[in-house]
């Protein structure tokens, strides 16, 4: 088992900075998710850990050992690609047995370990099938079994659930989390799906253009994002811009005061704050508090209902609630309110856009 340490790791492809100055420590047994949009450098980080590409700068340590210049074979890493990359000429059993066979393990041991791994991913009956004869979900589980059967120190998963339909994906997420906990294996998972990241991870790294924007627990990155990018990438957010009134809150351009903790921000400095839609309450127009607004859209999402609102001062706002808890129809005039505790002042510098 091993902790991973990135020490100033960077990777350039010619003019493209695929990964910039990444320094972060992953604890032993931790489930860390790398979340970012397409092209943000997620796969590159995994290939750097796996040793498939060499960093342009920095060091990577696994269990305290500098592996920066080690071959992939010497790193004891289990890797699952989005495309699964199963060996097309081998059946399920031989695919999973591969890492043990190339290590020259005795036949009896191989048979026992492969059987155990296949049972663990619930593929017992399919040992003699070829990859082409399996469904996407089954192929994904073969790739997973092949990646952990040789007891690697680290598991690297590159969008392993990307090709599965939503229902299957949610099932496999639960299984994957349970498997990771049983094995106690340090895991790096790559995804661009924020829900997947929030539900699976101990911590999340949010990546944009190769640069780490924030690292923290799911709760931290969702409720206390470091900047607008993180706030926007992890779901809808109401963005409020204005100037700090020390000790009172944020004075918006429209003149309204949004009460919130201002910390050590100097009086009059430009700042931005966010409020998550599910923290926003809709009040009748007659209510004395809140921002006056008109309902522009009413979106039904099944478990939730979402309202898009135009504040009288021109600001666009979003509110969401469990269906039935609140109601408002298109064109209704309402007042929008939230508790000061739900306003998060973005810590980013120079908030003025």
């Amino acid at each position, binding site marked *: 088992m091993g902790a991973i340490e990135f020490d100033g790791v960077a990777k350039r492809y010619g003019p493209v900075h695929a990964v910039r100055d990444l320094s972060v420590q992953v604890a032993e047994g931790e489930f860390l998710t790398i979340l970012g949009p397409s092209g943000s450098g997620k796969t590159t980080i995994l290939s750097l850990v*796996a*040793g*498939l590409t060499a960093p342009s700068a920095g060091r990577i340590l696994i269990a305290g050992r500098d592996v920066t210049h080690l*071959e*992939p*074979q010497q*790193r004891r*890493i*289990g*890797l699952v*690609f989005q*495309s699964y*990359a*199963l*060996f*097309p*000429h081998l059946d399920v059993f031989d695919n999973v047995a*591969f*890492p043990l*066979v*190339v*290590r020259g393990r005795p036949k009896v041991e191989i048979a026992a370990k492969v059987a155990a791994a296949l049972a663990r991913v619930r593929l017992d009956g399919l040992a003699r099938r070829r990859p082409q004869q399996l469904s996407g979900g089954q192929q994904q589980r073969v790739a997973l079994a*092949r*990646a952990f059967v*040789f007891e690697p120190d680290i598991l690297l998963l590159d969008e392993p659930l990307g090709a599965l339909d939503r229902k299957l994906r949610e099932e496999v997420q639960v299984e994957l989390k349970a498997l990771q906990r049983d094995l106690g294996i340090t895991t790096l998972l790559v995804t661009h799906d924020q829900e997947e990241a929030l539900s699976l991870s101990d911590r999340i790294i949010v990546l944009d253009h190769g640069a780490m924007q924030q690292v923290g627990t799911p709760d931290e990155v969702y409720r206390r994002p470091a900047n607008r990018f993180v706030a926007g990438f992890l779901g809808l957010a109401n963005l409020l811009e204005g100037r700090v009134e020390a000790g009172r809150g944020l004075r918006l351009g429209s003149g309204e005061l949004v009460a919130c903790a201002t910390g050590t921000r100097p009086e009059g400095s430009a700042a931005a704050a966010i409020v998550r839609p599910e923290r926003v309450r809709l009040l009748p127009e007659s209510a004395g508090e809140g921002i006056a607004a008109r309902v522009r859209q009413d979106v039904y999402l099944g478990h939730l209902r979402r309202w898009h609102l135009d504040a009288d001062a021109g600001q666009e706002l979003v509110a969401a609630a469990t269906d039935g808890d609140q109601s408002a129809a298109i064109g209704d005039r309402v007042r929008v309110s939230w508790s000061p505790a739900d306003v998060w002042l973005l810590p980013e510098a120079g908030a003025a856009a």
Partner: protein
Amino acid sequence: MKAGRLTALVGIVTLVFLVMPILIVVGMSFSSASSLQFPPPGLSLRWYRSFFGDPRWVEALVTSTMLAFASSIVALVLGSAAAYGIVRGRFPGRGFIDANFMAPLIVPTIVVAVAMYLALAKVGLLGTWVGLVASHVVLSVPFVVLVVGVAIRSFDERIEQVAFTLGASRLQTVTRVLLPNLVPSLASAWILALIASFDEVIVTLFVAGVYQTVPKRMFNELVLEVNPTITAIATILIAVSVLAMAAIGLITARRGGLLKTMIGR
């Protein structure tokens, strides 16, 4: 519809134009006449008997066969290794090396022949068996580099990368992962190399010395006299080529044919 019919007509005429001479040669090879005559006055196998009954022809056939097997196997091994390096390597100048392997296919054969003649003379291998095999390897290696190169290129590199992370050395990855998946392409490449060597005449004329291959003998015979035995040999060569192409067709049929395999899907 009109355009369709015109296309069909042009196609048929072209096909007839291409196939006609072959059919005439095949027909004449079964002739009972003592000179080249078409249509044949009667049928017989006398020219086949004359071919197999002549020790000089049989010797040429043995030489050609041994030469084709030796050079195609060497070309397969070297060409496949080269293709792997060209496709998967990460060193500069790969394009140049690739072009270099392809050159014998593009440069006029007579230029290759003169070049081989001078080069082999320089190293003292002119007229030797080793020199002859080497020159045939040079001629058939482009087919191998082409076919195997395309096959490697269309094989997902991530599958090889996963093998590395699973602990397989480069050699294990090549032998246990890459090669098993290349078998159809390797077989096609080998057959193409075999045919390329078997019907080669120009370079052979320059470098073979005393060695007589079937095509070289045919060429020399034609210069002296027109003997219908030639048509029997030609028919045998055609049959071998057709069978070989059919074999390639069968081998690659599951993957949509050689052409598609080569274009890369």
